[in-house]
């Protein structure tokens, strides 16, 4: 398994890896989309510091999310590769042990996109604020950030659902759907504020 740090790759190199093999995949792409969105929010907030009192605090939160979510691109790829290897039965051992190990790995493979979805929802909320209160020149960037974050939340929620393969009343599923809904509502607010 590769231990390459995606954050140290050039963008074209990362895109090449994305197109190339099993990992990075959807979760990594969602994590980096949230990072891009958080970067946009920070930019809008920083550019609005003269007219928006809370701008500095919003930028700081966006940067904290950016720092947190970037490394999840790698974490997600590792968790998924691990689970995929278990799904192929590469781990050996008796059936009961294999099934237990597989369940553990799938749980892990779902936990990372769940975290990405939470961060996406927070980023979308920040983007909506930036869209409503930020400098007019940059509101379209804030709306773009919110739309990207909402897309990432939706993608991450889908991955959680697939990886867990559980029923609707599973608390993790409810949690991730909450994130998806919050992000979608924030994006609708942000997009509405620039129309």
């Amino acid at each position: 398994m590769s231990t390459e740090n995606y954050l140290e790759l050039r963008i074209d190199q990362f895109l090449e890896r994305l197109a190339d093999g099993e990992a990075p995949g959807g979760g990594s792409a969602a994590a980096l989309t949230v990072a891009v969105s958080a970067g946009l929010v920070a930019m809008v907030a920083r550019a609005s510091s003269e007219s928006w009192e809370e701008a500095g605090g919003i930028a700081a939160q966006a940067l904290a999310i950016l720092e947190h979510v970037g490394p999840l691109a790698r974490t997600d790829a590792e968790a998924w590769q691990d689970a995929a290897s278990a799904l192929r039965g590469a781990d050996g051992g008796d059936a009961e042990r294999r099934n237990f190990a597989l369940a553990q790995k799938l749980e892990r493979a779902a936990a990372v996109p769940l975290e990405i979805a939470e961060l996406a929802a927070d980023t979308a909320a920040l983007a909506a604020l930036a869209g409503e209160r930020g400098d007019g020149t940059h509101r379209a960037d804030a709306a773009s950030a919110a739309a990207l974050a909402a897309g990432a939340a939706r993608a991450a929620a889908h991955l959680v659902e697939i990886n867990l393969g559980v029923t609707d009343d599973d608390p993790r599923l409810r949690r991730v759907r909450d994130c998806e809904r919050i992000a979608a509502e924030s994006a609708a607010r942000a997009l509405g504020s620039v129309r």
Partner: protein
Amino acid sequence: MTRLDSLSDAELVRRCKAGDAEAWNALVDRFSRYVSTICLRGFRLRAEDAEDVFQDVFTRVYTNLHTLRNESALRPWIAQLTRRLCLDTLASGAREQPEAEPISVDREARLDEIDEAFAVREALHNLSDTCQDMLDRFFAQDQSYRTISSELDIPSGTIASRIARCLGKLRVELEGRSDPSAGSRE
């Protein structure tokens, strides 16, 4: 009764100068982690050398506190004293611990980070409990707005703005802190 840990550095110094033993204990308590961190993480002294510097720093602070002209300059004064004693210790042949970080993270950068972290920590103490709690949850515990909202029973849509206002107050605290040069002969 005044809680000693809520006093400013200057007030603590004034009480120590007046011979208040409890204030002295509070001063040691407030700065012991700071001094240890400079020795162990800033200068990477070995534990036994760090312990010697620690004892020496507080002995000198106790002996020379009356010479500190600007009482709010306690922290930079203690920092300067600790740095000097660490350098003396290294010059006398003590060895640094093996590097646990890349060489590029040099000593000055580490010391700056320590200073900044402790300044933020002190400034945080002057914020309301709610602000401290929210900043800790978001920045240190990486909690989401949804989690903060449900645990503190605050509407989710207001969390980001509340955190931003708390950060604004923290900024005012940090900017308002004097950074006077050390005012003692020690």
